[in-house]
């Protein structure tokens, strides 16, 4: 939790707010065993290999879509068991790109 300063009628108050979590990173469709892409695009870069042990927040791959390099980030820790795409592959929304256990 983060303390945020709040001023009302020239008096200062402190209020608690959820700690600001960096957005953009975690897409809701990921499960502990599958990483999917949230929008259609082209795989720009795969940053993990089979056997890698990853933690929450690690960048798995970069998806080029909507004129941007979108980082696809692990929502759950685990071990990479299978990589289903290569750089240059075209992927559709919700396509499974990496499997984990």
């Amino acid at each position: 939790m983060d303390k945020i300063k709040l001023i009302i009628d020239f008096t200062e108050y402190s209020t608690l707010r959820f700690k600001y979590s960096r957005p953009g990173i975690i897409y809701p469709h990921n499960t502990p065993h599958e990483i999917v892409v949230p929008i259609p695009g082209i795989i720009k870069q795969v940053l993990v290999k089979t056997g890698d042990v990853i933690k929450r927040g690690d960048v798995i791959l970069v998806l080029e879509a909507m004129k941007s390099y979108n980082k696809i980030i692990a929502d759950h820790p685990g071990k990479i068991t299978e990589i289903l795409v290569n750089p240059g592959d075209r992927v559709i929304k919700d396509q499974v790109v990496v499997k984990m256990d």
Partner: protein
Amino acid sequence: MEIAKKISEFLSRVQELLLGGGEKSIKKQKAQGKLTARERLELLLDQGSFLEIDLFVEHRARSSSLQNKKLAGDGVITGVGKIKRRPVTVFAQDFTVAGGSLGQGHASKIAKIMNTAKSSGVPLIGLNDSGGARIQEGVGALAGYGDIFYLNTKLSGVVPQISVILGPCAGGAVYSPALTDFVIVVQGISKMFITGPEVIKTVIGEEISMEELGGAKTHSEITGNVHFLAEDEESAFKIIKQLLSFLPSSYQELPPEIPPEEPLKKFDITSVIPANPKETYDVLDIVKSIIDGSNFLEVQQHWAKNIIIGFGRLNGKVMGIVANQPYYLAGVLDVNAADKASRFIRFCDCFNIPLLTLVDIPGYLPGVDQEHAGVIRHGAKVLYAYSEATVPKLTLIIRKAYGGGYIAMCSKHLGADFVAAWPTAEIAVMGPEGAANILYRREISASDEPEKLRQQKITEYQEQFANPYVAASQGFVDAVIEPESTRDILVEMLTLYYDKQRDKTGKHHGNIPL
């Protein structure tokens, strides 16, 4: 002596009513980790400011099992009070009294306090903790809900309406909050659904837990039904106080102004925006380096994260901020982002809150999925909401402003009062790659080295069109500005337009695509 006796009798009557559903029910409420309705009011309102109305109202369930029972306050506490010395109207449903169920007396109390809110021009805060309609009162209970929905609608755009969900809320009980401006839920306590897990299981055989179906997290992240997620009840009340500090008490007032403050974050464009326009960044860093004290109250933080909405101040004056978030889904406009932004824009327009729009949008999201979800109809809401809004509208184009997304994000064409662009802006009908592929398709396919020619055409297009100067040459951008001077320029423009003449039309109302 006679008078003293009357007074003591009065006090003993009050004493009994203040206990709500009695000690046993209160213990049960506590065991569920919930506060009682009176404790909630104590935490929400300034100390000693609550004046209760309709304490003695009784239930109207004649000829039923309830006939000879007393229900304290008919399951709801209503009244007026103050939050940080500003008057508010409140109701708090009391789950300890017949499960907070809504009967006619209960509903008429809420309706009365809503009318007070309307006629006195002060915000309405509803603390919802109710099992739903009181079955014993039959259609009378439904009538009660109907009256409340009607008044919620009449109050809409007149005074801010805030709902907190502090228990299970099912059926009719969720529609009143849904009609209000802001809904706050508490982790582990709030549940909202039209039909609960039991009914779903019986009727269509699907099994789902209450939490998954309509818990706080579900509504914050998936449905977009709520605006704030609080960790506990106390934080929920703090959010209300913080929210109210940005809002006027009614549409006839300006939002509260406070002394200006410099942003805590310092502006350093090169550290915020990556050199490569394809790399993403967090637009909140820019928001926080523009607004007073970097103090930003984000609304719907967990839903449709590709667009950011919330309140901040510029030179002491409240602004509603809408910003594309390149960090999430490249900042595209999709069905949910369009809904999120449009409703916020309309709220600000209702309550005299100027709009600041930060643009970095690659466009509307293409795909079957979005098209079939009705992105045309939803996307049109953004166009409608911005065009309709008559509050001061300031726009800053940070980077990408492509195609329909450029028009939608409060462009000059939709009535922006001032549009500024950074030198990093790219304002064009489509991205360089797409444009090169379409414009030079024949040349590229006829070439001996198609890939080389394609790259060359992309670069050419980028140099020629992916900048703010084409738009500026036609007056669609009012000024291309140095990023360092952004805050100063926006402050100046806000001051200029703050008292802008707002045109009112004589029509009944427009017909926004819903």
